[in-house]
């Protein structure tokens, strides 16, 4: 039995494959040896010239070569594919430090952020958010709040009048009166009223003829002043940090009696005295009090059965204190360099101190 042809094919294949350096050449080689007219197939054709005894051995040897060639081509193929991929990856390599495709992000207004934080706190306490008119009647802005026309406290607020009976609201308190009226004398009422208000002030660093206010109102049977203190204490800790304390100072608002100003311990110096609290350790942040019986009565609540508390605060002032904003006019100038500073999310901070 002549197996020299088999060896020759194997030898020539081994010589050829070592020169193959691309997948095309490999494919050609595969056809040359394993194709229908290929060299290995040619060897098989020699079988017919052999005796029956010799055929199995010869066949086995040809198959051995076929396996050898098939495996070698596969191995070579893998190596070449790997190299081609490497080349492709090398070609596709980019500078990852270049900026990504822009998907511009706008920024919320700092006042909106502040108001939303405060809203969320009171929502968690079961309050609703009530809204009202920015142009109000004298009745709802003043009279229903125990400020009759001759009341000297009307001097406290300079009002933009539109006519003798209509005006730009000077506070969000008319929403209180309207909400209470709509409840037809039935409690509980638990609302906060955020919104824009207007005063006849010349605009400067600390005054704005338009600003925002958030008013809160709770009316039910057995509402006590201690409930007001507890609620505002919780508020101070939630919005200004867990270590905050509050103190109440007697004050005056026509629509509450007793009335208090509420100070929080300074979040910057923790009460030691600094420029934010003007050295006192305390920052005035809220006006509050127990709803005046006249206000309850005018809105249809029986003051012998119901009592309530109310409070009001200025998001402009709170945002100015919180972020150290030096000029209230920034809120209404809409300078992108200002507004864009309030883009990122905020959290409690590492020590759960919001400020």
């Amino acid at each position: 039995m002549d197996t020299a042809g088999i060896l020759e094919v194997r030898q020539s294949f081994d010589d050829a494959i070592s020169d193959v350096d691309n997948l095309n050449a490999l494919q050609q080689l595969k056809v040359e040896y394993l194709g229908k007219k290929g060299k290995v197939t040619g060897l098989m054709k020699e079988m017919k010239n052999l005796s029956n005894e010799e055929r199995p051995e010869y066949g086995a040897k040809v198959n051995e070569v076929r396996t050898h060639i098939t495996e070698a081509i596969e191995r070579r193929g893998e190596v070449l594919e790997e190299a081609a991929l490497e080349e492709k990856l090398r070609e596709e390599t980019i500078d990852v430090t270049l900026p990504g495709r822009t998907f511009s992000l706008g920024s919320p207004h700092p006042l909106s952020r502040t108001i939303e934080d405060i809203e969320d706190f009171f929502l968690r306490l079961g309050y609703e958010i009530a809204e009202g008119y920015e142009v109000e009647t004298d009745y709802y802005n003043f009279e229903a709040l125990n400020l009759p026309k001759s009341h000297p406290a009307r001097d406290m607020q300079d009002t933009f009048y539109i006519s003798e009976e209509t005006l730009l609201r000077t506070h969000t308190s008319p929403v209180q009166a309207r909400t209470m009226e709509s409840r037809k004398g039935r409690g509980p009422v638990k609302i906060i009223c955020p919104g824009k208000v207007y005063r006849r002030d010349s605009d400067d660093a600390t005054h704005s003829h338009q600003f925002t206010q958030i008013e809160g109102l709770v009316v039910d049977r057995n509402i006590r002043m201690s409930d007001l203190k507890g609620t505002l204490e919780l508020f101070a800790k939630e919005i200004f940090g867990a270590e905050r304390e509050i103190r109440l100072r007697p004050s005056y608002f026509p629509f509450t009696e007793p009335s208090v100003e509420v100070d929080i311990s300074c979040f910057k110096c923790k009460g030691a005295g600094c420029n934010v609290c003007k050295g006192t350790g305390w920052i005035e942040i809220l006006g509050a009090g127990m709803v005046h019986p006249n206000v309850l009565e005018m809105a249809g609540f029986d003051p012998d059965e119901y009592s309530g508390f109310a409070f009001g605060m200025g998001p402009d002032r709170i945002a100015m204190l919180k972020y150290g904003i030096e000029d209230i006019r920034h809120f209404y100038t809409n300078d992108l360099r200002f507004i864009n500073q309030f883009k990122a999310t905020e959290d409690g901070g590492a020590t759960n101190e919001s400020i």
Partner: protein
Amino acid sequence: MKVSKEWLNEWIQIDVPIDELAERITRGGIEVDDVIDYTAEVKHLVVGYVESVEQHPEADRLRICQVDTGDETNQIICGAPNVEADSYVVVCKVGGRLPGGIKIKRAKLRGEVSEGMICSLEELGIPEDYVPQEYQNGIFMFPEEKTAGSNALEALLLDDQVMEFDLTPNRKDALSMAGAAYEARALFGGEVALPEHEVAEKGTDGNGTLEIKNEDATAVPYYGARVVENVKVAPAPAWMQLRLIKAGIRPINNVVDISNYVLLEFGQPLHMFDRDHIGSARIVTRYAEENETMTTLDGRERHLESQDIVITNGREPIALAGVMGGEFSEVTDETTNVVIESAVFNPVSIRRTSSRLNLRSEASTRFEKGVSHEFVLKALDRAALLLEQYAGGTVSTPVISDGALELEDTTIDISEQFINAHLGMSLTTEEIQESLSKLGLKATAKGEGLEVSIPSRRDDLKIKEDITEEVARIYGYDALPSSLPEYTKITPGRLTDEQSKVRIIRHQLESLGLSQSINYALTSRRKAAQFSGPEDALELLMPMSEDHAVLRKSMIPHLVDNVVYNRNRQQKDVQFYEIGKIFISNGPAVLPDEEEMLAGILTGDMNRTDWLGTKVPADFYAAKGIVESIFEKLGLEDDVRYAQTARFDELHPGRSADVLLDNEIIGFIGELHPKYAQQNDLDRTAVFEINLDRLLAVKQGNIVYEQLSRYPSITRDIALVVDESVAADTLVRIIETAARKYLVDVFVFDVYEGGNMEAGRKSVALRLTYLNKENTLTDEEIEKLHAPVLEALEESGAQIR
């Protein structure tokens, strides 16, 4: 109200430092705004006796004074024109200091030695406004003899600190030294000593010299007067002048000063008339007649109205009650006989008159809050006594009066339970009584509760809640416990649907690159007319400026301002949105329609990536895309249509659309008119304004889930040639109407004009998607559906390619 500690100590002894005093008063409810310390920065100030004054040989304006400063006589060069020999002055000695960091050194002025400085009041830190006229532009000289070398701050009563009370309108009781003293007593204890006010009448001119008549008891419930004769008008004593100065009142002369001094003591304004110039022996008070006129002591003629109260001599006004005296009856340097008025006037009338005439004074602010009846006569007597003591007068009559004072205490019934239930405290009756007694309010047991007596000086206390407040503030809010409400019913807190959607819209717009803007609602008339219909804007009665005179009718003009502002600060790409109200007038006397709008403005490019050269132009289609994404989020995209519009002159007529929700206009999208853009120095800028109330009024309910179709959808593309004026939306609607069923989507995927297109024509390519959710659509079925669509398009004039 400025309260001097030295003066307060004369009423009630308080032995705490000023800081503690101010803090306790603030915590008690009267905010001490400021403390003026006249001793700060001052050193070595003594009383000097000017022995001689000579002209400086080298300088016209300087004098050489020899001044006895106690232990020695110093030569002091003085530039003041009024320095006189034989006078007592304030000297800052060598080594001394004055406010403003001035140090006094030995000096040579034009060759003459000067050892110290003779001081003016201004140099001691007193504002010029309060310095008496005779000492303005010169040094201060004591009107009486002093001891040379003694402490000048003490002699001037400036060894003192003054608290500035920022009083809330309800605390009129503290508009006097008496009130300050009672407040201090409530906080510190002790007793209040009223100043001497007993007066002995010893004149010859007895009863009947003056007759008083109040014609209207609602105008003037009480009018009292005394006649003081033979006064000599002169400067008041130094201590009185300085106390007035510290309180912020400029001394004039002894008669006027005494009237102001007593006003500060008791909070009771007085008026001094020249007895001999009243013009009669009668004082008649009444409401003025309409169109009556009088000349007030500032020389101005005043036109009176029927709500003004006048003091008359029976014929004509001699004073505008509580507001200002009349010209001919005022006290002058020649006055010898004085009528002191101490009265109660209708507070509302005084308030109206003083605010109408813009004449707010120490007197009118007190009258308009109501004076304390218990002090009306004390003040009258006190002033008479001081005129005797410091103006050489003789009190010639008893009090002459008409009307009645309410001197009886009023009462308020209250109970321990009421106070505790309102405060959330558990005070005992004794604790309540003690707190009230500190305020001088007597609380006696009555039945189950307490009866609280209210003297007239605290007639601001009217209801039970007022007493609750007094107890709480004197007991101290630090003792108030903290609790949370115990509601009768638990109700959840939640945003309304509308409030939730507004938050979602805001966050979506921010994610799309728009920043939030907040603008003023007040604007100029010119801007109010822009991007808006012809209706008049709502105007303010008294605007502060032309820029803020009317309420906005569109938010776009201020957003344009925002863009201009930012473009001027090197920001090229500016995109803003604003949510706020516009105001549609229903006439000034009734409330307007307030409409919540969602507005936006885009200029420059969006999503700009410079190094890749990619960007989204901020044009009409960018604005429309943003608005569409909002409609999609709100589930309204199928209910909204757009129609070309030329409603507003400020918008590009070819690049503006009305936005219609269920065929009703709810807003617009457009690019600025090139002319308007140019006026504002802007390039292409797109805006939108949508009525948010209308959007939020559509209720969506829950999402309706549909099972996914198991059958494939089939698409068919149509290429059309149409007139360039044919809107894409028109073609879509023709297709939607013609397709009988299974058409689930149709959209334009290509528009082509120019090139080899015929002029005035354009090519539009649309893709239609058919789907039968229950079965596979066969080609035959599709053809049956699609053929009528093509027919309808051809009928409309479209040429199918």
